[in-house]
């Protein structure tokens, strides 16, 4: 049964099909009210972002104006130029791209291989180990923080990219493995069967059959991984003590510490940090939403 994508009319707009007189007028009003409400909530949720961008374009006196003003006057686009000179933006961007790129590659690659093992290969310990994997989702990461830090310190990995990237290659996190495994289970086994009869190796089945079918869930975990690495704060805070190793998310914090806060530059830098993931998110939006609705996120 391919129930997954059934459009569920959660009939808030209710009674569209009732043939009562004045239906069109009613339906129109309901719809209008709905759009207004959707936009209202949207505005509330986006407000901090709007304020962030507005502040990034203001001059200093206007930032401290009371009551505060939303529209910058004048629009100081030059704040952005100043901001990238006030802290090593491009160096931090490079660091962030390296960490995010490697960690995402590691996560997507290893999570999909591990999920393939759990979903498409039978072995006696499979169920037990999968249970263990699920239970690790409930493990608070804080328990392992200190010994992991000690381990990486002993290995001499502090102030390198290794602590933030190497662990990603070890399965990339139980949640992602779980998501992909749930999805792989929904693919018919006949394709694999046919390929094996033709003498294909399981690695080829993974690469040529499973992966091409999994674009949407792979997009989901890619977006999740990029976001969590791009925005990670505690990891770089602990492992990147040297200023030249900082990522953008961490660099913003130190930007603030310079004597007194220059809010407009800080917000310009924040906006610049947000823009790349924003672009990615909008680009992947269709796949992302579709993928989330498709995957085992329905929690069974």
């Amino acid at each position, binding site marked *: 049964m391919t129930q997954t994508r*059934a*459009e*569920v*009319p*959660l*009939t*808030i*707009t*209710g009674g569209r099909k009732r043939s009562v007189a004045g239906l069109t007028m009613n339906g129109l009003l309901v719809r209008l009210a709905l759009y207004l409400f*959707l936009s209202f*909530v*949207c505005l509330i949720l*986006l407000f*901090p*972002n709007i*304020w*962030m961008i507005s*502040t990034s374009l203001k001059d200093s006196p206007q930032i401290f104006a*009371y009551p*505060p003003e939303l529209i910058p006057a004048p629009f100081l686009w030059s704040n952005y130029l100043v901001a990238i000179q006030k802290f090593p933006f491009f160096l931090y961007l490079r660091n962030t791209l390296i960490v995010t790129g490697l960690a995402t590659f590691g996560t997507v690659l290893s999570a999909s291989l*591990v999920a393939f*093992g*759990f979903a498409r*290969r*039978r*072995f006696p310990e*499979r169920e037990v*180990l999968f249970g263990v994997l699920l239970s*690790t*989702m409930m493990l*608070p990461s*804080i*328990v*392992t*923080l*200190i*010994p992991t*830090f*000690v381990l990486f310190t002993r290995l001499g990995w502090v102030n390198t990219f290794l602590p933030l990237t190497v*662990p990603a290659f*070890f*399965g990339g996190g*139980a949640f992602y493995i779980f998501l992909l495994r749930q999805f792989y289970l929904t693919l018919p086994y006949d394709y694999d069967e046919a390929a094996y009869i033709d003498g294909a190796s*399981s690695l080829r089945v993974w690469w040529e059959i499973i992966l091409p079918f999994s674009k949407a869930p792979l997009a989901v975990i890619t977006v999740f991984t990029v*976001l969590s690495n791009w*925005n990670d*704060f505690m990891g770089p805070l602990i492992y990147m003590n040297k200023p030249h190793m900082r990522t953008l998310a961490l660099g*913003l914090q130190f930007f603030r510490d310079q004597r007194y806060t220059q809010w407009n530059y*800080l*917000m310009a830098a*924040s*906006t610049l940090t*947000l823009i790349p993931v*924003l672009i990615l*998110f*909008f680009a992947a939006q269709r796949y992302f939403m579709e993928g989330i609705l498709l995957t085992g*996120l*329905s*929690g*069974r």
Partner: protein
Amino acid sequence: MALQTKHRPGPLARKEAWEGRLYILPWLAGFLIFTIGPMAASIYFSFTKYSVLSGADWLGLDNYTKLFGGDRLFGLTLYNTFYFVILSVPLNLFAAFLVALLLSVQVRGINLYRTLYYLPVITPAVASALTWGMLFSGDFGLVNAVLQALGLPTFNWLFNPKITKLVFVIMGLWGIGGSAIIFLAGLQNVPRVLYEAAGIDGANLWHRFRHITVPMMTPLIFFNLVLGIIGTFQVFTGAYIITAGGPANSTLFYVLYLYNNAFRFFKMGYASALAWVLFVIILVFTVIQLRMARLWVFYEAER
């Protein structure tokens, strides 16, 4: 292929099994290196005095007796954290559910709204924390300006220990997009036939919601509740950036205190004891929830 075929696991099945183990090996190795190993080490450290520079000196139960006996801050951070969890988790869950319901309507352009509602989640925590710091500022903050315009009392939000935690609860609401999208996925997966059947039986909107939507969503509510509690107990970034635990330690949340001990005072042993205590607390919460789940979580198989 012409090898002898044994009774049960034939060579093909055995090959498949070995392949399977090989595929999951990265995870299994990672589990041993980055989960089991550190957990064991963490227990050991918690019985020692340990800074990364020096070796570990065995202390026995000293760290724990100090925690439960003499550490006033420990009790305070527990109080702060429970306060935050108890307010924040149910509120976020409820709000996320409502937002998911709102986003599940089928109208043109709804996907744009879904994307926009998710934007606060993709904003770097540092950037949004700093923005909130501005908005709640006592002297030039927008929140106070709005309250004043409405003729309501204003507060020195970030400097009044009585209300600082509430500021974090409010801020937390902007992260509901993550749970909302999971709820949304669940809402889309509720079989349409159920609504149709109920509609034929004359169930109204509320009845359909109460007796179809909610029961079908309980597994996801449970999922978000469990992970929400685990995550909320570990609240860190916002407090680290905006208030650094102050004023008067009113936002010194548990993990922030743990972080200070480990990475500012280099008391790794003591911090490990803190980590284990939090782990046990979270474990107890999780087990209670797993037990209680039988009472209210609806699984399709039970039909």
